[in-house]
């Protein structure tokens, strides 16, 4: 089909692969120096990226579901998270984890106001909003308003407790088990637990009725 030019074309969009930002140039320079000096190999860097991408919130969800069905595990998870999580097969690496139990009296929510500290070993990479200045500055100042924007309404007589991950600890929220889940298996429970509930900006919703 011929293409006649009786109309104006929009200007071509700039190539989006031109992402040579300051920090990318710096990363490439440091990486190539490390490889050149024999400190790491290109394959080790690639494998580490692969490992990072393999971590997903499903790991955290499995931990939460186990805590819901096994009171002994739950107790150990709060007292000694690294050991408890190791026993169900997840190595959380050098991370120092604090597990925050939601209760009918307390709702917990996590932020890193200074950067974007996040329990990557359990939840994978953080969502973009977690790193945004808007979330980081507002959730400490007006947590209830921010939670409302996520669709989460916390009753006035329930404490909202914000945890600012400023230094060496990382945080996992242990959400409340929703009503109507008595008959569910551990795997079915884990499927209900989303990333945002483990950051604390949502609660876990009951399963949809068929």
């Amino acid at each position, binding site marked *: 089909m011929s293409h006649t030019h009786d109309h104006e074309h929009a200007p071509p969009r700039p190539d989006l692969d031109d992402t040579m930002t300051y920090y990318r140039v710096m990363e490439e320079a440091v990486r190539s120096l490390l490889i050149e000096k024999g400190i790491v190999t290109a394959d080790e860097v690639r494998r580490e990226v692969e490992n990072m991408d393999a971590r997903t919130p499903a790991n955290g969800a499995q931990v939460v579901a186990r805590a819901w069905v096994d009171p002994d595990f739950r107790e150990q998870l709060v007292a000694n998270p690294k050991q408890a999580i190791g026993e169900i097969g997840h190595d959380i690496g050098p991370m*120092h984890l*604090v597990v925050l139990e939601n209760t009918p009296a307390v709702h917990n929510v996590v932020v890193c*106001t*200074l950067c974007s500290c996040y329990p990557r070993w359990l939840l994978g990479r953080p969502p973009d909003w977690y790193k945004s200045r808007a979330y980081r500055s507002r959730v*400490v*100042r*007006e*947590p*209830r308003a921010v939670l409302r924007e996520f669709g989460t309404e916390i009753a*006035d*007589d*329930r*404490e*909202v*407790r*914000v*945890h*600012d*991950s*400023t*230094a*060496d*600890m990382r945080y996992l929220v242990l959400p409340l088990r929703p009503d109507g889940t008595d008959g569910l298996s551990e795997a079915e429970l884990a499927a209900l637990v989303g990333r945002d509930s483990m950051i604390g900006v949502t609660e876990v919703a009951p399963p949809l009725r068929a």
Partner: protein
Amino acid sequence: MSRFAVGDRVRVHDLWPPTPPTHVRTPHYVRGHEGVVERICGTFGNPEELAFGRRDAPRETLYRVRFRQADLWPGYDGSAADHIEIEIYEFWLSPAGQ
């Protein structure tokens, strides 16, 4: 040996700008405020030294300190029961009232 115990009331130093300028992990919004030690996290490398490659600097005790939201923010409009918990190194803390 940690200087403070769980339950102690502490005050965060109100230093700005830090002298000399350094890499600080104590956000502004808690400086000069009083809170309660929630737990002792252990000892860690001091980020204010590590940021400059000084890896042999002494390790520092890290605390989690709980603040009332109503104490931190004028006109806080949530519940009076709301709190913030945050990690602070020992050298940023004094006993409350000092």
